[in-house]
């Protein structure tokens, strides 16, 4: 059972972060709700625990070892050097040793060794190999749902062992024996059926967008459009559905609209592909990830657009940037003069480079802004045409729209960034304790710039980060309004003026 707010101690933030001593089983009580048959079956998974689960699990593991090179290589190569042990925000926040990346891998590795390696078959005790048991399955379910697949550990590993890959494999095996996670699988089922994570049907979406147009009209007296299903538009924008209604996400969507309007580029959203998020990646399931992504290819073809732009979302950008070409490419029907897909930040940055946008930075003078690098953007994708563009471009947008910008400590930004604590399919209230504790390293870094540089706002380009921070900031005595969308700041500073 998930614990309620009062039932766990909120960690104290300290000035100089420490590596905690291990506290075995500190998080052994944390596990998310299990998926019901109606969440499992639409994804092609058994509704509940199958009878021959042990055999099934091992078969699936064997199959995956032959399909994903990362698995045999990562499971064989680890030398237990320990470099990753203090890199995971969940270990730093909970001290549970099974949240050390290598220990998380070992939950799978010890079974791999027992059944798939010579050493583990004949000398299990020597190499720490164990039989697959109910206890092991229980541990998989718990601790593969205490990893946000953020890849921070893979940065520091001498072999680039990426625990996210192991977590995804663990979840894939669990799904195939009937033990899925309710939160992720319910959402994927919704996308398959309706087209977005929230289950917003077309009329509701149209309504929301109309409301937005009125709001913007009232606010700045410019007729900014938020078009839906407009055939022949130049650009299809796919954005996380949270952008349609959640705070502060929606202010980002308002900002995208202003940029399109100012640049005079026609664009549209799609009610069929009304979701950039793709939780298929979180559960490590290729087929579901492909099926979710296919809606976007379909929509782009149906609407006859020339370009696809992706809104502010971390894992969505990973799937779009790194996987789309593989999953739903080739994109030979789109304009080859633009990258496919293009990130909204790249899109805006491009326009700034061309001198197509003007800013009045004073509009944001009530703010001192810092930027939270999202894991999936930082360590699993890129923006622009050079490595590290994903760090430079959002910051350039912020500098173009704000007079006061400060970075957090170097070991907490760029590829060293800490996860918000809610990524990877963990953004659910049944994992609240984990989310609050996992946010510690980011909260400490943020508190430092608040105290030392008077930072008032933290901008982000990820729907999950935004929701997670809105929820956890108050636990640490900070205001939930601190978290803003990059394109909110861009939109607020953008000089709208006359059409051209």
């Amino acid at each position: 059972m998930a614990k309620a707010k009062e039932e766990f101690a909120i960690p104290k933030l300290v000035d100089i972060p420490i590596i905690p001593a291990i506290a075995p089983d500190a998080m052994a009580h944390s596990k998310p709700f299990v998926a019901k048959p109606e969440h499992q079956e639409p994804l092609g998974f058994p509704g509940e625990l199958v009878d021959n689960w042990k055999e099934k699990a091992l078969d699936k593991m064997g199959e995956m070892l032959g399909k994903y090179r990362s698995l045999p290589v990562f499971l064989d190569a680890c030398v237990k050097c320990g470099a990753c042990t203090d890199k995971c925000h969940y270990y730093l926040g909970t001290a549970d040793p099974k949240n050390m990346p290598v220990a998380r891998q070992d939950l799978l590795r010890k079974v791999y060794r027992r059944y798939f390696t010579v050493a583990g078959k004949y000398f299990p005790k020597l190499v720490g190999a164990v039989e697959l048991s109910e206890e092991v399955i229980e541990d998989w379910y718990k601790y593969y749902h205490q990893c946000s697949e953020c890849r921070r550990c893979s940065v520091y590993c001498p072999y680039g062992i990426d625990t996210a890959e192991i977590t995804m494999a663990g979840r894939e095996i669990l799904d195939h024996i009937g033990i899925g996670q309710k939160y992720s699988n319910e959402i994927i089922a919704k996308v398959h059926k309706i087209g977005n994570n929230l289950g917003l049907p077309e009329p509701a979406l149209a309504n929301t967008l109309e409301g937005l147009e009125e709001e913007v009209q009232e606010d700045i007296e410019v007729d900014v459009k938020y078009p839906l299903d407009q055939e022949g538009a130049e650009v299809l924008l796919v954005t996380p559905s949270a952008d349609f209604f959640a705070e502060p996400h929606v202010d980002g969507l308002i900002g995208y609209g202003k940029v399109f309007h100012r640049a005079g580029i026609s664009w549209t959203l799609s009610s069929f592909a009304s979701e950039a998020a793709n939780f298929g990646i979180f559960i490590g399931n290729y087929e579901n990830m492909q099926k979710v992504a296919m809606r976007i290819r379909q929509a782009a073809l149906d609407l006859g657009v020339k370009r696809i732009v992706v809104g502010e979302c971390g894992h969505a950008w990973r799937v779009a940037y790194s996987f789309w070409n593989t999953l739903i490419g080739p994109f030979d029907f789109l304009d080859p003069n633009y990258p496919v897909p293009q990130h909204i930040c790249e899109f805006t940055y491009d326009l700034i480079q061309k001198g197509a946008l003007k800013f009045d930075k004073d509009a944001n003078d009530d703010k001192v802004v810092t930027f939270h690098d999202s894991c999936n953007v930082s360590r699993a994708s890129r923006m622009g045409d050079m490595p590290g563009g994903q760090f430079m471009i959002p910051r350039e947008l912020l500098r173009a729209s704000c007079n006061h910008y400060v970075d957090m400590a170097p070991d907490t930004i760029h590829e060293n960034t800490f996860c918000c604590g809610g990524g990877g399919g963990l953004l659910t209230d049944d994992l609240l304790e984990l989310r609050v504790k996992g946010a510690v390293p980011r909260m400490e870094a943020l508190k430092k710039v608040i105290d030392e540089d008077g930072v008032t706002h933290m901008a982000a380009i990820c729907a999950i980060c935004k929701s997670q921070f809105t929820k956890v900031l108050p636990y640490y005595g900070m205001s939930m309004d601190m978290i803003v969308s990059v394109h909110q700041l861009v939109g607020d500073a953008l000089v709208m003026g006359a059409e051209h």
Partner: protein
Amino acid sequence: MSVLTAIFALLFYTATVILVAGLVAKIHQYARTPAPLKIPTTPAPTTRGGVVARLFREVVFFESLFKGSKWSWLFGWLFHFGLLIVLIRHLRYFTEPIWFVAALVQDIGVYMGFVMLLGLLGLLGRRSLVDRLRYISAPSDYLMLVLLIAIGGSGLLMKYVSRTDIVAVKAFFLGLMRFDWQPLPADAFLLIHLVLVAALMIIFPFSKLLHVPGLFFSPTRNQADDPRERRHLAPWAAKLDATRTAGN
């Protein structure tokens, strides 16, 4: 020819076959298993040349480990650098005339034995003292270090305490390579040293020493960051192109 010589000759033939066949099998497994998705840890090089440079820095400088843990890096690098020079120096037992590189490191090679041991002791110290490392260590993780320390230790004892007839040792190994067996001196430290080395060779393809081929096959390190420019398709994933649909 003595029984001892025959036993050691057979031991080294066996160890060599296991080492080579085991590694070839593993490398073959890694090579034929596709990486269906682009997963380089970014920022990553955008070209093949950049990837080669990245791997070079990982192999030679342990770049990622340096970012991760300065102590592991220091001890680990000392151990590996020492090991490399010592191995090169050992080639003089296998080449006639002595390969010039082996001759070149002849003098510093001796000190490198100590450097290697220092690194190994540092790694063992960390493994036994830091609570996080103790938690993740299996008996085999300690034993591997003990084995390497014992190999290095017995080697240095031969050098400084109880010398053996290295001319005869060389004749033995050249003989093995030419299938013309020569007698092996029956000195305790030499025999211990050789048994342990053979053990290491046999263990290699079944242990974490697979980090050596593993590094080169690691998709997070060996892929170029170019997914938008090039469509990356594994054979099993390519088959899905024909049947993919956008749901209901």
